[in-house]
């Protein structure tokens, strides 16, 4: 146990007194100093802790903004402008919060794609992965409601479009949900009030799920770029100080990018229309959601008007489906499919480094998501509709057809015997060793 020593401060008298009553220091020692982490994690593994830090930044700036914000349709827009103009460093706090939402999604999307590439969702980390999907869903709900709060044109019309989606649910349930979301019969002051209340609540729910996420992580520890289990002390290093310092360095790089947006292009990721106060009588030319929702927005719009509606009424008769409902189901299905991914992918090999075909399909899928994002931003007309539909079909085919088939037919490369072998063996691990080497050098 040479590498995994308890810190010296555990012997301090006061620490021991507290620890005897509440073992918080033992806990810290166990989860940081004695927590074994694969020695070969590359920089893609930085994004988990980054996401946690961004969450904290969002909560701190959000609570500060809440001290000055007024959740009333007549005052919300002006109260945000008052923050921008009259509150000391209000513009800074608001721009951090505004751009922080985008940064949060960038970091989390990279985190998710890292999991997809290196097979981090596979046994025994299925619940860890599913908790992550829950966090993504909560983030989306939180971000959506937060975007409504400034009560600009896109706030209002985005809220109108998205809440109306729920009306697609049949048997009167949808209308009931919509009325509940609105607190009335249109997007109005009660809507703004409850969105504000929930926007304040949900981040703390996210914190709760993040705790579960990290708890589940610490049971089996991190996956790694090679995707094989750690086989002994030669494969692992303690989290602290190795990964704490690596995460700190990554945080520095991230903050530079974040600061560039905050200070030099604060509205780059926003929409100009949201600097126009909400007006229920004037619909913007294009209602576009925030960029991080665009792929899902494209999937929503991809379903043709007569899809299922035409079929079911003719062939089944008793199910009254609307195209809108099909679109909504597709949109939520795009996330739901992530929940079952661990059971769709039965390939025993985790990392793409040893999956020559999956590696290609991973990148095609990544491009497909970018294409969907573009289509979500473009008006739904002409060739864009066709591209959007193809990209949507491919999105689902990737999970429901390609991944299950790959598990059956792909010839995977031979796995190295252990993590330390390709890393320390100097080329002994073949392709994996060569690929791992440059990243480890950093």
């Amino acid at each position, binding site marked *: 146990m040479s590498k995994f020593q308890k810190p010296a401060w555990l012997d301090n008298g006061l620490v021991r007194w507290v620890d005897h009553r509440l073992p918080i220091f033992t806990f810290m020692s166990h989860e940081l100093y004695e927590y074994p982490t694969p*020695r070969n994690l590359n920089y893609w593994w930085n994004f988990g802790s980054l996401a946690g830090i961004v969450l904290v930044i969002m909560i701190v700036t959000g609570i500060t903004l809440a001290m000055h914000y007024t959740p009333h349709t007549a005052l919300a827009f*002006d109260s945000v*402008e008052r923050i*921008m*103009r009259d509150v000391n460093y209000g*513009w*800074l706090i608001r*721009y951090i919060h505004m751009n922080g939402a*985008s940064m949060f999604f*960038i970091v989390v999307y*990279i985190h998710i794609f890292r999991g997809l590439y290196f097979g981090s969702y596979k046994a025994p980390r299925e619940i860890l992965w599913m908790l992550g999907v829950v966090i993504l869903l909560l983030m989306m709900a939180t971000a959506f409601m937060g975007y409504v709060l400034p009560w600009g044109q896109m706030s209002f019309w985005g809220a109108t479009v998205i809440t109306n989606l729920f009306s697609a649910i049949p048997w009167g349930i949808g209308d009931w949900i919509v009325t509940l979301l609105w607190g009335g019969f249109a997007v109005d002051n009660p809507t703004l009030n409850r969105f504000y209340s929930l926007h304040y609540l949900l981040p703390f729910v996210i914190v709760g799920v993040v705790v579960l996420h990290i708890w589940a992580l610490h049971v089996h520890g991190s996956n790694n770029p090679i995707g094989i289990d750690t086989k002994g002390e030669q494969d692992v*290093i303690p989290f602290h*100080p*190795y990964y704490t*310092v*690596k995460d*700190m*360095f990554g945080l*520095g*790089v991230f*903050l*530079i990018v974040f*600061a*560039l*947006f*905050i*200070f*030099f*292009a*604060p*509205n*780059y*990721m926003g*929409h*100009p*229309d949201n*600097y*126009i106060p909400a007006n229920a009588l004037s619909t913007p*030319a*294009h209602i*576009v959601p925030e*960029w991080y929702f*665009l792929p899902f927005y494209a999937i929503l719009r991809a379903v043709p008007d007569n899809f299922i509606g035409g079929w079911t009424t003719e062939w089944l008769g008793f199910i009254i489906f609307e195209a809108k409902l099909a679109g909504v189901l597709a949109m939520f299905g795009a996330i739901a499919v992530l929940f079952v991914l661990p059971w769709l992918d039965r390939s025993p090999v985790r990392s793409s480094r040893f999956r020559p075909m999956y590696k290609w399909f991973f990148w095609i899928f990544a491009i497909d998501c*970018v294409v969907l*994002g*573009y289509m979500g*931003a*473009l*008006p739904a007309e002409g060739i864009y509709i066709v591209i959007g539909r193809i990209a949507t079909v491919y999105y689902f085919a990737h999970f429901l057809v390609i991944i299950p088939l790959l598990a059956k037919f792909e010839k995977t490369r031979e796995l190295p015997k252990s993590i330390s072998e390709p890393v320390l063996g100097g080329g002994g691990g073949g392709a994996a060793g060569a690929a791992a080497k440059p990243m*480890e*050098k950093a």
Partner: protein
Amino acid sequence: MNAIRTVLAAGVMALLVSPAQAAGGGAHAPEHHWSHSDLFGTFDQAALRRGAQVYKEVCSACHGLRLVAYRNLMEIGFSEGEVKAIAAEKEVPAEPNDEGEVEMRPAIPADKFVSPFPNENAARAANGGAYPPDLSLIVKARPGGADYIHALLTGYKEEPPAGVTVPDGMNYNEYFAGNMIAMAPPLFEDGVQFADGTKATVEQMSEDVTVFLAWAAEPELEERKRMGIKVILFLLVLTGLLYVVKRRIWADVH
């Protein structure tokens, strides 16, 4: 600004570019050089002062600036006396007096710019049904920003293209969405008399008032960039040090 945008856009942000965001029907506003748009750029102080004059003498007849206070003018070089005088030209409702009646009083520097119309209906009634938007955020609220405002102000055509008929009460503007704009050409040669002797061409007045409106929309711009430089420099040093520390701590692993 453009350089940094290019760099940012080239990275992971490729996803963020949304071509749909340009308003349909109007020509794309040509790019104009604004000193405040440069990466470390500041507002052109002389233009701000002239622009404030153009707003006050021309635009403010129809357009409000309700989010800006008179006192804010001191941030762009107006003296306290000047600001008091400008504010006092307008009247605002006072606190109820001892009888409970609300009388009018001259505005003071702490008041926000008084809008020309009491409400939207009054504004529409006075403008043939059109609603002159408040200009406090106009530069931030339009795709193209300052370029668009400048293009719009100078984009009027006396003769519309062949085959286009301009309805009564409308004007042809190359850059307005749909090309038909209710606002008559607002700027005319020598429409204002600049104190600094600058010739008041339409181009000049348009540029100046655009700079003024850019300031009105983003009064924090200069402070923001100044702080940004310091923050980035600090982060570069910090990150460099963290990298060295990381290398040293990891030395025994490699």
